């Protein structure tokens, strides 16, 4: 790939920031007086300067094992995109996957091995020394208890660790803060198997989620969202249809935003609801024969009996049950919050029963093609380990890819009893900072590896570039040598890889692995399925004292269990639900807020029975049940790099230390609340929360949408004086003339986009993709609070009441609309904003003087200003401290202070495609150009193309009856056509 020279070159070249006039450029041609060009020693053959090279690999940000393509330029990884060959994510990628680059280039990465000296401070040592100490300690500790903690590793690394531990008589504990114990236990209860099946969202006809945040962090979010949006997205045509989606949970997560109906049940009662529905379905017949065994269980849970406990009236339960049963091939999933109550396992079991009664098991719930998450260790294992450590029966503790010191409050104390602690880490996180020996690991993008996320899939991970930290070593290689393996970890991986016939190692690596399908096995009802909910009413488990409220601690969409907190892209990514950046918050229903007389930004002091407290700022929202509080995890790091340290609260601290009945961790606690009088501004993207998004987002009922036929345009209501038409015709002609100049596009184009709101979930993967592609600066918490952020693409989220008064959320991406009659263009005094012949609103950064008139005149407010020089070396607001700047896209100018910037439909990608087309003497084809946002979108909601090409997808979609333009009565003639969101159900 690259030799050391390149890194030096890029350092130098990227050292060039815009002095005076010049706008800084990623591609390094800058105003430096004498600039040096350092040639390759040996140039690798797949390496053409100026042309990106893609390396297939596997994302290791979570256990889902999505396939990725790492885009490299001149030997540097500059962007990560989904690998179309991967059956998991089919070329899509979530925000966290995109952001793994900032883990690779993080300025606070560990550079060398460190060891604690006598005074307990970490000091640099050599690798030889480090490995010497480690082997020594391990030899001494043989038999005295050696423990290796890793994250969930369904991979060769995991196997290697097992081997080594077996060899030295230690044990391998895998720890994931969110480990799905309830899911496994619930499956065991209902089906007698602790495996985690694969859920087929794509072919589900009716989707019911009991708390499962399957588009955020649950199991395999990208895959699930991809499937979900293809099922839930509106299919027009002769049998127009979509799968209805009902979200059942006390708080709206990203799933709640997309629900056609949100049922805000009482926490802990989800299981009762499921059983009641199962009862109704069984009554109406059509349940499998052996479901009869359940009848007395179900009889105890008739809708009427559970109505009070769940807070959902019987009629609603009846209706939902009939819809679900009638759908024939629906899918109910339980997870997330619902699987983290003390009775989580039972809830999962109940939902399994619902699936079984409705006959979905084997159809949409497939055992056989099981997910790797089943192999994760349980929280009980960790608490057990902590007990051993406290008892002093552990001599050596090695950690890799897990940070229990952050997520388990008691861990540090327990680990303190261990004489020798070793940490493989890329960053000095809480666990590593406590270790006696810290070994700098390579980032997954720098080393070999693999992942087996699902039975039948062997996903490979290859280094996409030379190590950023030249003195770091891959944990795989280190462990391999410790385990006495001859050869590198790569050889080990290759050795474990079993070739499907006809595939060589080379093309396995080239395509990102070997992808097969495991046959699904049939599953019957387990023996003691009927025994669940025998004891006390479910919610009793959550009953607290007087003036105590249930606090739901849930995984943050972007920061997850805290591992994302060191990445500015994720910190500055507005949370899909709350739209808050860089901060923690507690969700509070307006009624509750009114009762306590608090409003947005007021601090609450939350006290649990166990005495742990948290000071969190309030975010008032209708998206949570009254009397319930919700806090995301992820912030509150003591140490984890400059972007994570000392931000607000670590929600894990609120949680009880002990494992619960099913060996999992309870993420819901009862807590008393104290209103403090302190206040701060929320760092939020949201402007005026009272607004409902009228004129921005259009809705249709399924019935209405289905009745629409081609040629109808229900949203066309603009009254434009006829004289404008002739004016525009002439203007268009002039533009066309310009395009023929030199004919750099083969035909006068009108670049345009279509966004299908019935598919868009608001997951915000596009936002991070845009940041990565377009060198958008992250500005930090203070400037975010002062609304200085620059999200070219933002996801707007409004709450509005449906006719029946139930809360519904609507979301839409908002980006430059590339208007044909753009208000921003005529007002620019220097033609920095102008209309390009191929139909874009050009923004010429180096011409802009920064009058900001364009931003005032843009009704969509999608233009952003560089208030400071975010590229300034060592500046107060430096966005890319080295080596973060290595990620900068060489094809996009890094903007200087004082210039306006905005989305240009990834004009650099358009030009790149045009260049190639011209060099190959061919015309541009539809699909040659894919902007970053469309490329990453997990739900295919965004389509880009040429409106003037009658055969392009975007042209077809822009004719769709659901199509509308935002603020179309301003006659800006936007290039973006939105397709109205369709609500399955009686009302929109």
């Amino acid at each position: 790939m690259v030799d050391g020279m390149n890194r030096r070159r890029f350092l130098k070249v990227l050292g060039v920031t815009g002095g005076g006039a010049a706008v800084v450029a990623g591609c390094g041609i800058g105003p430096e007086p004498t600039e040096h060009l350092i040639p390759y020693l040996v140039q690798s053959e797949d390496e053409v300067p100026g042309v990106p090279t893609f390396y297939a690999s596997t994302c290791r940000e979570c256990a889902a094992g999505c396939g990725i393509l790492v885009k490299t330029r001149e030997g540097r990884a500059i962007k990560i995109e989904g690998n179309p060959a991967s059956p998991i994510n089919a070329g899509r990628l979530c925000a966290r996957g995109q952001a793994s680059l900032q883990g690779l280039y993080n300025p606070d990465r560990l550079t060398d091995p460190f060891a604690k000296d006598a005074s307990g401070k970490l000091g640099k040592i050599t690798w030889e020394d480090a490995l010497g100490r480690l082997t020594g300690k391990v030899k001494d500790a043989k038999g005295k208890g050696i423990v290796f903690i890793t994250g969930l590793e369904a991979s060769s690394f995991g196997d290697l660790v097992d081997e080594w531990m077996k060899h030295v008589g230690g044990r391998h504990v895998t720890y994931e803060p969110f480990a799905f114990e309830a899911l496994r236990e619930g499956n065991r209860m209902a089906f007698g198997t602790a495996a985690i099946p694969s859920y087929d969202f794509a072919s589900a006809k009716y989707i019911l989620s009991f708390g499962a945040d399957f588009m955020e962090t649950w199991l395999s979010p990208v895959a699930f969202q991809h499937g979900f949006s293809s099922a839930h997205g509106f299919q027009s045509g002769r049998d127009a249809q979509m799968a209805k989606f009902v979200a059942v949970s006390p708080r709206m997560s990203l799933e709640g935003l997309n629900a056609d109906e949100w049922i805000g049940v009482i926490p802990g009662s989800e299981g009762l609801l499921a059983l009641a529905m199962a009862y109704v379905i069984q009554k109406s017949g059509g349940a499998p024969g052996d479901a009869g065994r359940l009848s007395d269980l179900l009889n105890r849970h008739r809708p009427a009996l559970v109505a009070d406990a769940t807070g959902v009236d019987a009629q609603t339960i009846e209706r939902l049950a009939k819809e679900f049963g009638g759908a024939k091939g629906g899918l109910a999933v339980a997870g997330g919050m619902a699987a983290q109550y003390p009775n989580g396992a039972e809830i999962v079991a109940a939902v399994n029963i619902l699936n079984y009664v409705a006959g979905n098991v084997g159809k949409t719930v497939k055992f056989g093609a099981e997910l790797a998450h089943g192999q994760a260790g349980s929280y009980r294992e960790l608490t057990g380990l902590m007990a051993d450590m406290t008892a002093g029966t552990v001599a050596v503790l090695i950690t890799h890819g897990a940070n229990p010191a952050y997520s388990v409050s008691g861990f540090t104390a327990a680990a303190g009893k261990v004489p020798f602690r070793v940490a493989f880490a890329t960053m000095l996180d809480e666990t590593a900072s406590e270790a006696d020996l810290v070994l700098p690991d390579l980032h997954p993008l720098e080393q070999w590896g693999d992942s087996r996320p699902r039975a039948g899939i062997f996903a490979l991970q290859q280094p996409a570039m030379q190590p950023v930290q030249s003195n770091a070593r891959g944990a795989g290689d280190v462990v391999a040598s410790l385990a006495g393996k001859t050869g590198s970890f790569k050889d080990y991986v290759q050795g474990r890889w079993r070739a499907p016939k006809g595939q060589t190692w080379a093309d396995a690596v080239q395509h990102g692995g070997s992808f097969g399908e495991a046959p699904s096995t049939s599953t019957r009802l387990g023996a003691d399925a009927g025994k669940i909910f025998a004891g006390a009413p479910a919610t009793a488990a959550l009953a607290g004292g007087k003036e105590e409220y249930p606090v739901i601690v849930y995984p943050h969409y972007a920061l997850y269990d805290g591992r994302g907190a060191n990445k500015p892209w994720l910190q500055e990514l507005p949370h899909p639900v709350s739209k808050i950046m860089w901060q923690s918050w507690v969700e509070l229903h307006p009624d509750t807020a009114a009762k306590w007389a608090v409003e947005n930004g007021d601090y609450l002091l939350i006290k649990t029975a166990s005495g742990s407290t948290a000071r969190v700022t309030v975010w008032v929202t209708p998206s949570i049940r009254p009397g319930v509080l919700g806090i995301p995890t992820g912030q509150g790091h003591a140490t984890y790099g400059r972007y994570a340290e000392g931000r607000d609260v670590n929600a894990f601290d609120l949680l009880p230390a002990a494992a619960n009945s099913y060996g999992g961790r309870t993420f819901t606690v009862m807590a008393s609340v104290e209103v403090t009088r302190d206040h701060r501004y929320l760092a939020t993207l949201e402007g005026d929360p009272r607004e409902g998004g009228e004129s921005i987002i259009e809705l249709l009922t399924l019935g209405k949408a289905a009745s629409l036929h081609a040629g109808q345009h229900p949203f066309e209501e603009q009254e434009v004086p006829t004289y404008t038409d002739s004016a525009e015709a002439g203007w268009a002609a002039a533009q066309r003339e310009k395009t023929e100049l030199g004919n750099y596009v083969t035909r006068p184009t009108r670049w345009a986009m279509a966004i299908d709101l019935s598919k868009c979930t608001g997951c915000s993967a596009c936002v991070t993709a845009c940041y990565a592609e377009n060198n958008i600066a992250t500005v930090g918490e203070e400037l975010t609070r002062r609304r200085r952020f620059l999200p070219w693409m933002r996801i707007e989220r409004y709450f509005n009441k449906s006719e029946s008064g139930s809360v519904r959320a609507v979301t839409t991406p908002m980006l430059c609309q590339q208007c044909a009659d753009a208000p921003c263009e005529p007002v620019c005094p220097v033609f920095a904003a102008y209309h390009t012949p191929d139909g874009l609103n050009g923004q010429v950064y180096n011409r802009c003087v920064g009058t900001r008139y364009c931003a005032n005149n843009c009704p969509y407010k999608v233009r952003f200003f560089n208030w400071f020089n975010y590229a300034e070396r060592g500046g107060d607001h430096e966005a890319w401290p080295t080596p973060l700047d290595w990620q900068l896209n060489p094809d996009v100018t890094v903007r200087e202070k004082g210039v306006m910037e905005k989305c240009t439909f990834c004009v650099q990608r358009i030009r790149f495609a045009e260049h190639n087309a011209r060099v190959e003497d061919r015309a541009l084809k539809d699909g040659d150009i894919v902007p970053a946002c469309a490329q990453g979108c997990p739900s295919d909601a965004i389509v880009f193309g040429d409106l003037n090409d009658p055969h392009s997808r975007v042209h077809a979609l822009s004719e769709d009856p659901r199509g509308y333009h935002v603020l179309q009565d301003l006659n800006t003639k936007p290039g973006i056509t939105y397709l109205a969101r369709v609500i399955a159900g009686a009302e929109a």
Partner: protein
Amino acid sequence: MTMHGGSRAALALVLLIGATQALAAQAAPRYQAPQVTDTARLKGPRQPIFFRHDIHAGQDQIPCMYCHYTVKVSTEPGIPSLQTCMGCHQLISGSTPPHQAEIAKVRKAWSDKQPPEWIRVHTLPGFVHFPHMRHIKALGDNACATCHGDIAHTTQVAQVQTLRMGWCIRCHVEKKVTRDCTVCHY
């Protein structure tokens, strides 16, 4: 295997050069690169290695794209890797002492794995994107001279054109090709 591919092509090239030199007698008088004694009065920056385009491209008639081989497919022409140099200079060690001295530097750099740090001559500001391949495509393989001057007969490379926007525009106007801003500025 890059090595082999590289050097095989290089060998062929060396033979070709040899042949042309042999034929030189009856062939039309070929360009002879001057003997340079006083390098101080040459225009342009002094490079770490006194590489002479006039000898390589002029006298030996090596096509520009033998070394700058990505210029037809990429926005960047590419700086030849040291391996490319060595492809020939494993065998060719120069005729005159000064030449031998320079070639010795190349071989040293190769053995030390310390590529020379060339001083950049042609520079554009970062907000300008100049696609080389499009210009070669439009103007032909020998169009390099349009912007870089008659390199083939230049002893030491110096900037001969202003490379300022006005200069670009002038040509785009003459050739009646696009003058849209976002073709170069984005």
